[in-house]
């Protein structure tokens, strides 16, 4: 089963490498990995999408925790969360298909970010399965190049029940 794991690490030289080294050394899969700053410039957040049996996933989380540079490890799997990925996709078009490609882009609420006389580049964001769907639809036109950012994810904020008494007038 796929797991999305969010890891807060010290924003420090080598922290990313340590995580990557651990994954390869232990033979764990990585589907995608992304890293960037958080609200605190001393801390980076890595979002790792990995896959394996539950026991392996437990080991992944423990091994991540064991690294000195990791501050917090949260397995977001099974939690309500927001997941997003960004893809840039350059697609070939022929005379008659340009409009089709652009309308596909519109359906998926993407943006056209570049065009020349052979290809058109789309920017699509959304949950990873949406990106998969776009790729699937665009494939027949011929995808020249693609770059996917890997998943970033956050736990959803707690849903507070509406309480009319607490509404300030």
């Amino acid at each position: 089963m796929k797991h999305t794991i969010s890891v807060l690490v010290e924003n420090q030289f080598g922290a990313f490498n340590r995580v990557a080294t651990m994954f390869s050394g232990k033979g764990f899969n990585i589907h995608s990995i992304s890293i960037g700053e958080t609200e605190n410039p001393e801390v980076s957040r890595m979002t790792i999408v990995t896959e394996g049996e539950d026991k392996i996933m437990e080991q992944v989380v423990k091994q991540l925790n064991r690294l000195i540079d990791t501050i917090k490890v949260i397995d977001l799997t099974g939690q309500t969360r927001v997941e997003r990925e960004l893809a840039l996709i350059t697609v070939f078009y022929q005379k008659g298909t340009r409009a089709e490609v652009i309308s596909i882009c519109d359906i998926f609420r993407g943006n056209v970010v570049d065009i020349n006389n052979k290809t058109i580049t789309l920017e699509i964001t959304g949950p990873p399965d949406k990106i998969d769907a776009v790729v699937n639809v665009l494939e027949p036109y011929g995808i020249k190049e693609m770059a996917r950012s890997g998943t970033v994810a956050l736990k959803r904020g707690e849903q507070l029940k509406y309480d009319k008494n607490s509404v300030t007038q």
Partner: protein
Amino acid sequence: MRTTKQKLSGADIFFECLRQEKVEYVFGYPGGAVLKIYEKLYDVKHLKHILVRHEQGAAHMAEGYAKATGKVGVVLVTSGPGATNTVTGIADAYMDSVPIVVFSGQVATHLIGNDAFQEADIVGITRPITKHNFLVRDVNELASTIKKAFFIASTGRPGPVLVDLPKDVINSVCEFEYPDKVEMRGYKPTFLGHQNQIKKAAEIIKSAKRPLLYVGGGVIMSNGERELRLFAKENNLPVTMTLQGLGAFPGTDSQSLGMLGMHGTYWANQAVNNCDVLVSLGARFDDRVTGKVDTFATKAYKIHVDIDPTCIDKNVIVDLPIVGDVKHVLAELAAEMNEPLQIDDWWEQINGWREECPLHYEKNDGKLRSEFIIEKISEKTKGEAVVVTDVGQHQMWTAQYYKFNNPRSHLTSGGLGTMGFGLPAAIGAAFGVKDRPVVLISGDGGFQMNIQELATAVYNKLPVKLFIINNSFLGMVRQWQELFHDEKYSFTDLSESNPDFVKVAQAFGLKAIAVNSPSKVDDALDEAFAYNDGPVLIEFKVVKEDMVFPIIPAGKSVNEIMTKRLDPKEMV
């Protein structure tokens, strides 16, 4: 003490930090990138630098010192080849959780990445084999980094830490202040063990009919031997130990079943196979212990106490995990117990296995055998020596026949199985231990892997007892060739190429004795133990083709244990 702010060079800061960490010995070797440090070292009085003959030797010496004393072992080497030569020792320390800190020189920061002379990315190279490592990029971070390095190496599950020191960092100057505390939000190493889990464990142990304690090196690292003894003795519990656990519980005690696993005793392995409650204490269910995992202790409810959460459910799924410091958990467990377990039937069964298949070797053919020598060493030292081994058959015979009475007395490379560990580790141990003899039991093969360190032992007049069990073979490999590889003795016969070890030793300046018959063993050992002006070596020329029994072949179950060489007649 110079703790208030003053301007010091990186090299001075380095030594001030070591002083604050109360480092007594640094095992090192000079070179270009650390010349400034060696310049300062010339006048340093608060620690002793031990010049090794190869940097691998330095790493193993630091390990030997650390394992024997419980303190952190310290290594200092130059960049490039100096640093890469320590890699095997670092990997060894990582596998066996030995607290060492390795300081490596590095080219100046502006040259890093340029393939500068003697540059190696040692931080990258050692990342998977250190508990943590650091590249110090600014002299202002030097003191706090060293503080962290010692803290990380010695706390929690101990392990090696490498600190890479670029030449310009060593040369530059800054205000020095040694922090007295370390704050690392990602590293909180103390765990006390969950109260309810401990209570539950105690209830389960109380109700056990066939309990067994399976003790690993973690008990020794946490200094939990007293707690273990009390817990086992007061509750009448049988104890078996891993290779690294030997010494945690006295080998002469009737409740000790000796070592378990591949070359463990028949009765310890039968006990594991038949116990109903298995309590693992600071052990990690290594494949040399479990054999075939599916058949390991299948009848047992498994309790696993370990400070490292990653050890739990890694190889064997357990029923009750307790993450915590073993010493602390043992004390808490003991407090929950009330009376000795009534398990006479179980003891009877265990003692039955003990009689059914004791450790044995041929004593009546007049030939010199390793087992006999090791038994003699055990007798002469009353199980009180610090015994260091190399890797191979002699290592397993030592584990079987030396009756360790104390923790930190059996130093061996278990996890990595590093030939060449023994001699330097014994030297390191001898620097740390002055009140007990330090004995090396090495094979003829492994002894040659760091033989250059004889010079270190001689120069420092260390009274180490160096015993070579010379079977003229890479014996352990030969054994596997005989048992599992169609008797193809491919490149394991050293009889044509071994040196005369006595002459070699003499050339290095050692006292050296050759022994080739059982009748000479007593006198030679007496002579060696009486000589304390420097190292002494005995070359024991033993029979060539003996094998270590029992053996459970790799990946097999206890039922497939082999207890003796097959008679050729039985084989056809």
